[in-house]
């Protein structure tokens, strides 16, 4: 009897230990994510403008309904999606090419892999300031090089008009996000056994055939993860907009992240700002779920 009762008691104490060990993490997550999230939900259901203290009022879903009928939501949403799609495509294509290159054996591969991490190590605001200098219309390096190469005849203000502002914003954003995507894809490439390629070569498969029928299908789960990650990051973009364009010119780069900032910290309307933040969160979560379902379906087929 003693042996029977000793077992469950030991399991209980292990369970308690697990709870105790995870409690600090749970507390931190609760205080830094769940509490702010709850406050944001609360604010989004209220009229809450800091410039009008004492006039806070519960208004239910009115903020949400107002946004859904407002061009100040749909315009930035369109800009956000344009930016996100452009960014993800650039990041995916470049990081895939770099990962394929770094997966090959060649002298200096280790150094190149280490160098790849440099952009990733730079804080995103510093990255934005770097690009602000590079693209400066009076003394920017990009203008100087383009002029020397004869691509342009005079310095250009690429951040001053569409579509060049969006193109350069995507390039500047992609530059710092490519390393993470490359590392993920590289780790995916290294899980593909060499003997599959060797068999394909014996069967006479060329480079393109090996990529299309071996690399790509086996890399698809990792590609899906990269797409999900990068899409979520891009939908939430803010810092690079803040430094490079401030949503301009003429609202051309006014993404939802910037609109949230404008409503909340410039107009001081925390109710409106929180509700649009919730809408962005819902859109991001929805897209993540859709991608996840596709990923899961792909796995099941395999």
């Amino acid at each position: 009897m003693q042996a029977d009762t000793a077992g469950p008691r030991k399991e209980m104490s292990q369970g308690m230990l697990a709870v105790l060990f995870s409690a600090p993490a749970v507390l931190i997550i609760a205080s830094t994510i769940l509490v702010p999230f709850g406050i944001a939900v609360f604010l989004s259901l209220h009229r809450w403008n800091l410039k009008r203290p004492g006039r806070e009022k519960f208004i239910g879903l009115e903020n949400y309904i107002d946004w859904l009928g407002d061009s100040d939501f749909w315009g930035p949403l369109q800009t956000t999606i344009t930016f996100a799609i452009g960014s993800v495509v650039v990041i995916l294509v470049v990081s895939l090419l770099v990962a394929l290159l770094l997966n090959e054996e060649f002298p200096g591969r280790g150094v190149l892999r280490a160098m790849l991490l440099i952009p990733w190590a730079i804080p995103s605001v510093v990255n934005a300031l770097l690009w602000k200098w590079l693209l400066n219309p009076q003394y920017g390096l990009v203008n100087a090089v383009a002029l020397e190469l004869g691509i342009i005849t005079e310095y250009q203000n690429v951040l001053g008009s569409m579509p060049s502002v969006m193109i350069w914003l995507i390039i500047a954003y992609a530059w710092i996000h490519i390393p993470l995507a490359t590392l993920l894809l590289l780790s995916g490439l290294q899980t593909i056994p060499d003997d599959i390629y060797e068999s394909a070569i014996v069967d006479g498969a060329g480079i393109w055939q090996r990529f299309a029928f071996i690399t790509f299908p086996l890399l698809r789960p990792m590609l899906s993860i990269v797409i999900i990650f990068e899409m979520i990051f891009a939908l939430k973009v803010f810092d690079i907009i803040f430094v490079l364009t401030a949503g301009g010119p003429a609202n051309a780069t006014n993404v939802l992240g910037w609109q949230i900032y404008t409503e909340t910290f410039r107009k001081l309307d925390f109710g409106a700002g929180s509700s649009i933040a919730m809408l962005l969160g819902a859109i991001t979560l929805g897209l993540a779920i859709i991608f996840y379902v596709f990923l899961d379906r792909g796995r099941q087929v395999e």
Partner: protein
Amino acid sequence: MLSSKKLIVLLALFTLLIGSAAMAQDDGLKLTGWPYQVDVVTENLGRFTDQYGWDAEFLPFPSNEYRDKMVASFVAGTEFDVAYVRDSYLAEWAAAGWIQPITGLEGAEELLADLPQGIIDQMSFEGEVYGLPYYSGVQTLAYNAAHLEAAGIMSPPETWDEMLQQAQMIKDAGIVEYPIFMSVRSGENYLLREWETLTAARGGKLFDDDFNPLFQEEGSAAWEALDWLTTGLDMGVIDPASLTNDDPGLLLAAGTSTFQTTTDYALKAMNDPEQSMAAGDIKNALIPGTDEVRSGTWGYVRLYAITNNTQDKDAAWQLVQFLGGKDATGVYYVPKRWALEFGLGFSPAPLYEDEEVRNSISGWIDPDLLSEQSEYAISRPYRFVPYFSDWEIGSWGPLQAAILGDADKGQVLADLAEEWNDLREEWE
């Protein structure tokens, strides 16, 4: 068991944590503002400590983000005692109860008696005065005289059309690619202010005295101002970076720009050989007008105010008096220092009589022209309603679109007028 090395590292980290927390508990006065000449501000605070015995430190935020950072600080309850305030958001901060009036405080009446009524009005909200001036001045025209001379131009432009013609001559002569820079970037210190300058210099205003919008009326000065910007950009004489650049003064200092409207004190740095390649060439002139209107401009004031979060209002008021008024020896020490060393505009009447100040100014700006420019200054009372900033923020994108020709000007201006009226109705 922890090894002794790990234990030492942990103890060191713990000590650092406790130490930094203790440092953060410093109970001196805290002044916040934008980071202009931080060393000088710190020196001034040192003098304040010597004279009054209170410790004081300066904790600035970046200029372009100052309002946003301060709002976050106010909401979070950060205990700043004294803050710089721009007149453009004085009403907003006063209405929200983030800053305190100085009306009635001991010594306030005497200091206010030295100030012009116009400055007091610009520091007031609903009948209460909210601080003492840090600096004040007017917007004026700065131009590179060497560029004009090289292009064979005898005198700076008197009308906006003439400015376009001169700019074309300078461009054609290969002196500068884009002779005119107009600050029409998104942001609180840029587009609206430039539009107000261009409008005032055509004899107009954005709003009438009852705060009704005027800009949407076809043929209005404000409408023509936007047309002029579009024309200049299309001609290639206005720098397209006007829409994005946040530090145009550097262009004049580098000699790559000929005409800019600017704050009066900026000319001191532009004519300082250590800061400017065009030192000595940058002159001030009246902001151009039209055939009927000679010029137009607006004045501004930056002030020191006591925040509502201060734990020691008496000490904070003492600091405001020291910074914006007189020190313990009874002289306007800080305002005079700003005027002498950095050319910042001042308001107290006794400084106008100060020979040292008068001689200093004439070294980098024509004081007679500056004085004449200030006579053309218009008041902008519409900026002192708490919903102005909401309207202004929403105006940047549409106005840029109208200037670039990406949107119909009439429609943009009509929409902005409607937006103003909606906000006004909501607030009133």
